[in-house]
């Protein structure tokens, strides 16, 4: 079967629907007059699985577009940069984490090139973020993270 939009949609809905239904079967069902925590999830996940089957059947008609992947690198680079940001935020402090995220994400662009101007811009932006979010808006995020004791972190 070709990887068309319908196949992806149908497969996704069917898979999530079935998993959700199996999990929901463990929750008490109750009666229509006294719905238990399982009643609504079973209803919705069954409908979702059926919708998935319907879309997969439609996919056999071959009407939907093929999925083409032009470049998949940005997906991994940008997701990776954000996950790293989440992990490093309290360890490096906000400005440094922002700088890493900025540069990390920027490498995903086809037009990315190292230039001191861009790095300087990102550095200025990181400092502005630190002032804006931590100093002015008072978000409880450290400016200097726990991995940087040399710089006087708590």
């Amino acid at each position, binding site marked *: 079967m070709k990887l068309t*939009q319908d196949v*992806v*949609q149908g497969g*996704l*809905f069917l898979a*999530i*629907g079935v998993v*959700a239904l199996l*999990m*929901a079967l463990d929750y*008490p069902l109750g009666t*229509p*007059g*006294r*719905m238990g*925590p399982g*009643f*609504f*999830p079973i209803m*919705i*996940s069954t*409908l*979702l699985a059926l919708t998935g089957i*319907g*879309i997969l059947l*439609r996919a056999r008609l071959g009407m*939907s*577009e093929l*999925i083409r992947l032009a*470049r*998949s690198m*940005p*997906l991994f680079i*940008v*997701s990776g*940069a*954000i*996950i790293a*940001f*989440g*992990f490093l*935020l*309290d360890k490096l402090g*906000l400005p440094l984490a*922002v700088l890493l*995220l*900025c540069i990390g*994400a*920027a490498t*995903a*662009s*086809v037009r*990315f090139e190292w230039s001191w101007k861009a790095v300087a811009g*990102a550095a200025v932006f990181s400092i502005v*973020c630190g002032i804006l*979010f931590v100093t002015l*808006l008072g*978000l*409880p*995020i450290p400016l200097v993270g726990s991995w940087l004791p040399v710089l006087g972190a708590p």
Partner: protein
Amino acid sequence: MDIFSGLLLGLQTASTLTNFTYCFAGVLLGTAVGVLPGLGPIATISMLLPFTFGLPADTALIMLAGIFYGSQYGGSTTAILMNLPGEASSVVTTLDGHAMAKQGKAGRALAAAAIGSFFAGTVGTLFIVIAAPLLAGMALSFGPTEYFSLIVLGLVTSMVLTSGSLLTGFGMVLLGMLLGMVGTDVNSGAARYTFGSPDLMDGLNFVVIATGIFGLGDVLANLENESTRAASIAKVSSLFPTRDDWRRMTGPILRGTGIGVLLGVLPGAGLLLSSFSAYALEKKISNHPEEFGKGAIEGVAAPEAANNAAAQTAFIPMLTLGLPGTATMALMIGALVVQGVQPGPNILVEQPALFWGLVVSMWIGNLLLLILNLPLVGLWARLISIPYRYLFPLICVFTAIGVYSIRNSAFDVYLMTLFGVLGYVFRKAGAEPAPLILALILGPMAEEYLRRALLISHGNASVFFTSPVSIGTLLIAAVLLVSILLPSFRRVREEGLQEVD
């Protein structure tokens, strides 16, 4: 409270320095967002929501509302100057607006859009003042049965009015409802779909999901086909409409406003439908329909008036029923609930300053947009030429910090990334994610109202067909579903929603 003392209270609330400043910041930001392609109002509002949690409820809502209707203005600017609809609802504006720009009449098209929008915004605001108390009064008699049916209508409309097939929309709604169930069930205390993780016990935060799917998902999808946006920007000459322009656009503005005001109130219908209907109506009744698509000023004034009127009146069901009609309104509800304000029929009594302050601020905001935007056209045009490679890392930073700050949790950042990837998959698979966000907010409400309705009726589902309001609402939903299968409506929908994202 009568209307005049209400408006007076609203004026007092909206004219405080803080609220005025945030209103100003909101409309300015909204216009910028509307101008920048690849950054929509849903993504922006979800990104900024966490930062408004520290503000008072009225200030936060005033700013978020400003972003929302400001983006309608911004969207029309790029539609006219660059043939790029910054927002979905400005797609029709590109037809005649850009044609006018190519004939050197860009300034007059912009003026028509701005004047139409301002007039419509004023009427829309007045309509809220009159209609919201009436609807709130009616809504006091609504029970769980009526609410459940209204939610069904909202979800059905959102399915009908998105691009892609109806079945896909249905699947997205169901998926959104499932995501809404994650966490502790309020009635039984049972943990559902938490996979044993304590981080999921409180449920999935809608901001995390919306930021992931719309903010990050857009970035991921845009980067895949990153192209040089060699947009040519039309020159703006005279901003003043001629006497002939005035004569030609008065009627369309009035009719567009009427359509927008009415359609905006419908749950799920909103901006898109109103701008398309207004355009279709003008083309139908015009003496010179052949000019449409080639630079007819009617084709700019009418849809712009309609979508701005709808942008105002969309607040009516959100505030008075507590039922969001669109994904953007769903985010506003989320923001209010976080602030401890429960939207619903009692909001006028319990939060008069919030309600009236918002209404008056919307009028002030529209006035600001009219005064600001025409002189600032040059600035907006420069904004659009910012290359995407500088823009997207900043979007990543704001989404990540915003999501982290909700409860200082790195887990939420990981979750947001997951939903970003999911949002990318949805786009690749041609599944429009807006119904999912709406269902995420409406799903838990639907479950609760269904439970209560059936509890009262002892499990008898026929109550949904015996209450007049409920059966009427369900009938409208049924008509909508049937109409989408009719060939003529189907064609209009496919044409209309083609470009829309």
